[in-house]
């Protein structure tokens, strides 16, 4: 078993992993950039080392420094979390070459699944169903020819992609070239690789993914699905388990396909196989994320299996303690990703200092967060501040619990997506589970009940506060330094005389 783990990440996921380590009696080593000295992961960890300036390329992406710190601190393993170096096969190789354990899959599995073109070939061989599309990186002229065969609408995807970067929907042939250019540019910037491929767009599809766990003894099990169809710009917004459309038969079939996918690449550790599910409940392999997922808590809440602890045990060479037949799904879990963005202003990123945080508590509420009063939200890293997860005995209870928890949640200092989530879980279609991957962007509107009850309460609160600081308010009404102030003064004086 491992003794000391370096967590090569920051934010809520670093805190999550540190917690799992401590519960397993493992020592922890945090790393931090110059702007993260006060971060929660630094304070929770047993040890912490500075690794460089704020930009990730000079700190959290510096694999050489991470390995050096691991060796210096006597760590025997590195957990990459998600993002940053989690899916870089070269990093996993360098970790192993330094005599350390990488808490994740073998480099060969990362490489096999990381190249979307290669992974398709492997999946076809393993009998995993796929969406029709091209099978290799394309030149623009080849793409035009292939697009005519696949038909529109279609998707352009980056070979090295993930998280929606470099992905573009194309509705008409005449848009293809411009979209190819944009996709290549985004991909080049995000991954240093502008290879793309095309895929038929399955309309009205849901994004449902299957969690797998595989040990070094060759045991592979699945832990059921996560419904991730509520997305914006291909970023997941709200996830739930079980999926509202899941049946035991579909889960068994998708689970078996996910296990086959994992086995086909010799997978070890926790991983996620993403599928598109169409209206006829046919499912198609999208990609495999060879790491811990942001939304892993919903699976943990419903199955009772701690995925991070399992990753650590597996990395220590231990066999899985649970068999497929031990996995059961109890109740319902929902996760809301709380981002620093303004849902009332085109989701523009919001930065600044967090001035206060009030977190929901009570039955069935879990928060995986890294924010605190005084925390700086910068443009350097991911805008996700926290994840709010609730568990209930069934879906209605979980949804009502999420409403209740969101009502309690308050973060001041930056704009957050809390209002977006509150609107979502108050929307008929979401409550009915009747949504696909386009629902949030194309149909969902932030609309309020017509009674205007809360608007009136807001008006009263603001008025009372304005009344309390009345002199202040009156002085601010006129633009400072303009003639208007004097004119107003004159008119006001005139009124007084009346």
């Amino acid at each position: 078993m491992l003794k000391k783990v370096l967590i090569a990440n920051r934010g809520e996921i670093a805190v999550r992993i540190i917690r799992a380590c401590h519960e397993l009696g493992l020592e922890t080593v945090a790393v931090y950039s110059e702007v993260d000295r006060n971060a929660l992961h630094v304070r929770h960890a047993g040890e912490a080392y500075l690794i460089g300036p704020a930009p990730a390329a000079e700190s959290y992406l510096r694999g050489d420094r991470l390995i050096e710190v691991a060796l210096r601190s006597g760590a025997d393993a590195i957990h990459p979390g998600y993002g940053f170096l989690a899916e870089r096969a070269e990093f996993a190789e360098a970790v192993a070459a330094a005599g350390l354990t990488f808490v994740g899959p073998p480099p060969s599995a990362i490489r096999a699944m990381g190249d979307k073109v290669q992974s398709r070939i492997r999946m076809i061989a393993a009998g995993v169903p796929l969406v029709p599309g091209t099978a290799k990186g394309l030149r623009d002229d080849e793409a035009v020819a292939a697009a005519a065969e696949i038909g529109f609408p279609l998707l352009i995807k980056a070979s090295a992609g993930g998280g929606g970067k470099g992905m573009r929907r194309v509705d008409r042939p005449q848009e293809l070239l411009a979209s190819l250019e944009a996709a290549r540019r985004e991909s080049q910037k995000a991954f240093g690789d502008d290879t793309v491929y095309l895929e038929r767009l399955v309309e009205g599809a849901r994004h449902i993914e299957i969690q797998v766990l595989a040990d070094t003894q060759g045991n592979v099990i699945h832990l059921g699905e996560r419904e991730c169809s509520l997305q914006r710009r291909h970023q997941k917004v709200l996830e739930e388990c079980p999926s509202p459309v899941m049946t035991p038969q579909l889960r068994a079939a998708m689970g078996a396909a996910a296990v086959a996918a994992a086995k086909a690449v010799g997978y070890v550790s926790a991983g996620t196989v993403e599928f598109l599910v169409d209206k006829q409940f046919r499912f198609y392999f999208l990609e495999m994320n060879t790491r811990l997922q942001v939304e892993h808590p919903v699976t943990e809440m419903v199955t009772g299996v701690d995925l991070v602890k399992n990753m650590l045990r597996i990395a220590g060479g231990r066999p899985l303690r649970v068999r497929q037949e031990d996995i059961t799904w109890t109740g319902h879990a929902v996760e809301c990703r709380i981002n620093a963005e303004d849902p009332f202003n085109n989701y523009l990123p919001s930065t600044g200092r967090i001035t206060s945080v009030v977190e929901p508590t009570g039955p069935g509420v879990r928060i995986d967060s890294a924010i605190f009063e005084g925390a700086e939200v910068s443009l350097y890293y991911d805008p996700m501040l926290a994840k709010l997860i609730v568990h209930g005995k069934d879906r209605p209870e979980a949804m009502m619990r999420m409403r209740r928890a969101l009502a309690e949640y308050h973060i001041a200092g930056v704009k957050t997506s809390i209002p977006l989530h509150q609107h979502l879980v108050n929307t008929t279609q979401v409550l009915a589970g009747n949504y696909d991957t386009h629902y949030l962007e194309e149909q969902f509107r932030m609309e309020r009940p017509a009674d205007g009850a809360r608007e009136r309460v807001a008006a009263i609160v603001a008025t009372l506060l304005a009344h309390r600081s009345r002199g202040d308010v009156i002085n601010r009404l006129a633009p400072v330094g303009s003639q208007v102030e004097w004119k107003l003064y004159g008119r006001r004086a005139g009124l007084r005389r009346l």
Partner: protein
Amino acid sequence: MKYIATVDGTDHEIEVDRVGEVTLDEVTMVTDLRAIDGSSYSLLLDNRSYQVFAERQAGRYVIMIDGDQFVVEVEDARLKQLRAMGGTAHEEMGGASVVAPMPGLVVKVLVSPGDEVEANQGLLILEAMKMENELRSPRAGVVRQVNVVPGQTVAQGDLLVRVEEAEG
């Protein structure tokens, strides 16, 4: 004392008579608003309890109730009347400036000076927080000024593009 509170474009006339009572839409209610901590308030409105978070931002109040957000502008009713008499002559007419809503990197400039643009037409792409954000024209008109080039880093509030009314 009478106020006009504007929420989502709707005006509410609210009278604060004396400490503890407000009148809204001719209904008088007993209020008890207590500051709890920082931006956290507890409101009892005819004994209905509300947990509220309120902040003053740029002269407006941002109010959070039940996880939803409301932006409220409050004006002294009498002053609002006066301003209405004064007209809008001091407002800038005809043009619109597009400023950087956040610090970021200009990825692509989609227009040049002299271009005619529609309202909501994309003007440039700004990358911030690892996402590309398209900044759009707030109005139809002619691009008069483009102050940035691709690859340029901009600070929040920097003037990027100016769009003015088309002549004739």
